[in-house]
């Protein structure tokens, strides 16, 4: 038996949280040994780019977030094709599917999330696509030209992106969503209505508030039966009904989990020397309440950075301020932005212009911004995020902010954290 490999820092996962952690570790500890476990045999990439690989806008060979040279220069080993099967905290070892094991000093779990496949009768018997890996995206990209009648289950970001791309290839597209609106969680009913109308104008049929009762294989692909009894034939089916943290390998590890891996404000799990960040982590929500699985890319970067700093013992490690919902969404040449909470606070302003597809909503509590949402109404979401995190008192500029949020927020930025 060969000697077991041991590294000072072991990072399981290879996307934004993992890369951000690697940067932070190397910033403080240039010498410690570091290894990254990549599930796939590919340089680290972002799951967020996958819809664009589907559309062909991104090429699989150019999506790597860092070139191989980066890892060589920083003396970081990439171990490809390693999926965790078990974590043994007592001996500080992780085990892989191929039977190998590895010992760690500090371990970061950044294993992300995987698609949820809903328990619909018949789904197991038909061919369908999901979108989690680069291979999934390449497969779906190859299937696009042949699709004539496509059905997307779920009107979240992945589903809506895919529906747009399918529509652009000329296929007839139907989106089936259980909730009464598209993009629930990021946009309210009024904003969702504008987004839905743009999709409808581009020929995408939206079956909102609909549930799929059962599926059956057909000659072209499959037939879906909805709760209202109507049937839809599909030659391409994409299941995009949400994702869930990948934590199956943690059984017996003693690491506390709920939906995701529970972490404190330094991204530490309940077990010593094990950290978690990104879509797999369940961390403090900014507005209080129960810890939540954010699934937000900029948040994954933030959490990864904090985890990396804490793992390396960087004395400047900040406390995680909590997850703020954030989203940017471009569709059919329109831009939608969502920063903060719809419900934490009182409505300060809401403007809807369905004719020009414009929408703006501002939510405040005690003259402090808690949420701002816009369609085709430009503002700087990064500045708004800071205003929320800093709980900046907007009392003196409230009217000005509501009248012109972008300009006013930029002035505050320049005055407060230039």
């Amino acid at each position, binding site marked *: 038996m060969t000697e077991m490999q041991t590294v000072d820092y072991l990072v399981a996962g290879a996307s934004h949280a993992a890369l951000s952690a690697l940067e932070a570790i190397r910033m403080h500890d240039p010498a410690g040994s570091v290894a990254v476990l990549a599930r796939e045999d590919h340089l680290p990439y972002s799951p967020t780019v996958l819809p664009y690989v589907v559309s062909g806008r991104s090429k699989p060979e150019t999506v*790597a977030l860092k070139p191989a040279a980066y890892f060589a220069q920083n003396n970081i080993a990439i171990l490809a094709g390693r999926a965790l099967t078990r974590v043994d905290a007592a001996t500080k070892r992780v085990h892989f599917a191929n039977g190998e094991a590895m010992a760690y000093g500090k371990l970061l779990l950044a294993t992300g999330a995987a698609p949820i496949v809903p328990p619909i009768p018949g789904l197991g018997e038909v061919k369908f696509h999901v979108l989690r890996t680069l291979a999934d995206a390449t497969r779906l990209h190859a299937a696009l030209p042949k699709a004539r009648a496509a059905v997307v289950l779920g009107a979240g970001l992945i589903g809506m992106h895919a529906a747009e791309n399918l529509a652009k290839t000329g296929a007839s597209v139907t989106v089936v969503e259980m909730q009464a609106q598209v993009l629930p969680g990021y946009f309210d009913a009024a904003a969702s209505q504008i987004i839905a109308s743009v999709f409808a104008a581009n020929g995408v049929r939206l079956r909102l508030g609909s549930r799929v009762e059962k599926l059956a294989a057909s000659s072209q692909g499959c037939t879906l039966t909805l709760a209202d009894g109507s049937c839809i034939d599909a030659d391409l089916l994409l299941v995009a009904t949400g994702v869930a943290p990948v934590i199956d390998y943690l059984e017996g590890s003693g690491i506390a989990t709920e939906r995701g891996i529970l972490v404190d404000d330094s991204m530490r799990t309940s077990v010593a020397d094990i950290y978690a960040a990104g879509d797999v982590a369940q961390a403090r929500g900014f507005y209080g309440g129960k810890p939540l699985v954010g699934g937000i890319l900029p948040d994954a970067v933030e959490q990864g950075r904090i985890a990396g700093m804490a793992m390396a013992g960087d004395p400047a490690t900040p406390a995680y301020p909590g997850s703020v919902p954030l989203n940017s969404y471009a569709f059919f040449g329109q831009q939608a932005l969502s920063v903060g909470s719809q419900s934490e606070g009182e409505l300060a302003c809401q403007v809807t212009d369905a004719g020009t597809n414009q929408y703006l909503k501002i939510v405040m509590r005690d003259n402090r911004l808690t949420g701002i949402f816009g369609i085709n109404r430009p503002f700087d979401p990064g500045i708004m995020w800071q205003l929320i995190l800093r709980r900046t008192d907007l009392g003196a500029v409230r009217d000005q902010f509501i009248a012109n949020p972008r300009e006013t927020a930029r002035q505050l930025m320049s005055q407060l954290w*230039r």
Partner: protein
Amino acid sequence: MSAYSTIAFKPERCNGCNECMTACASTKGSSDNADSRIQIMACEDGYELAMCRQCADPKCVAVCPAAALAKDEGVGTIAWDGSKCVGCLLCTVGCAYGGIVHNARAGHVVKCDTCDGDPACVKACDQGALRFITSARIYNEVGDLEDLFVPGLAACQGCNTELIMRHTMRRIGPNTVLATPPGCIPGSGAVGYNGLTGSKFPVFHPLLTNTASMLTGIKRHYKRQGREVTAMALAGDGGTSDVGFQSLSGAAERGEEILFICVDNEGYMNTGMQRSSCTPYGAWTSTTPVGEHSQGKSQDAKNVPLLMMMHNCAYVATASTGFMEDLYAKLDRAHEASKRGFAYLHIYSPCTTGWRFPSQDNIAVARLAVETNAVMLWEFTPDSGVRLTRPVDNARPLSEYLETQGKYRHLSPEQTAHIEAMLEKNVAMIKKLAEPGTPPVCAR
């Protein structure tokens, strides 16, 4: 890791003319200031700025899912790759400065690219509110050169002179014999201690009186041997302007090929802060105390660089660590001139201990000295005469500089008025000398 050139904004100088925005938009093919990548906002009490900071640890890059943004390690800008961008706008979520925004006209996000190192906005600003700071160049050029002094020299906390020593020798290089007469420089251990040397090149410790004479002999010896070696002095203002002056004057008059650098901290700071002939009027020192009979120094300082100019040396200049690009350019020219004749460089060195100000303020004090014209930066060659290398037209009030230092705390209004009057005369004289058409200094 490199240091980079950067666009700096001084809001107090901005008058809201928006020429920078017009220039930026036009460079990027638009006549609408909304398309400018630099945005000036008028507020109640001045102007504010939103533009890309070209962050060292850029969030826009970290959150980009398509690797379409990357920091250019060569020039430091964050570069946008249109062939990779997917238009998701996540970069605008990551950026806390409004530095990258979706541009409807372009149909994608846009950001400042510093116009490939020649920013149009800066050129359009005639108020000095926008400047393109290129001093990072120095650190890139000399950062890899070896520091020729050992670590752990025993200078005071925040010592400017230690910076001068290290920067100077790094640039001049080890093919040098350095003379450093009694003062802070040898006192800090530069010449050695306990049988060990404090430098990585030949250094010796002449008397206060004979620095330039000894260097004369050393330089002539090497010339006779056919070796090109820099003979150089790092002397305090006492060793330069008081008892050291006769040998200095003699060597300058003979045109010895020497590089003589005076590190002027306006007194004998090493031995207990006694006054020298470079101590300014009104300054407290331990020999010009403040009390019943004395209110600081009662004479004006000797203007040594002007005296050296009158020797018609191959090169004479004043410099300050507050303006490193200027200092480095003068080091190069002085070094070059010392191969032909006598080169004299007078570097002002604010002294945290002797002038009594907090140790972290040294560079700020050095800058204020220049910005108030208490110190003027100029250079002289026999051919081109005097040239102001960093003219200060809208000088800040001298009081701002005087207030930074404990040694001036006792000044009466009359004393301040005296200092201001002398400063005015000095400024007028140097400016007159620097005017085009002024006859050059001429040896008799």
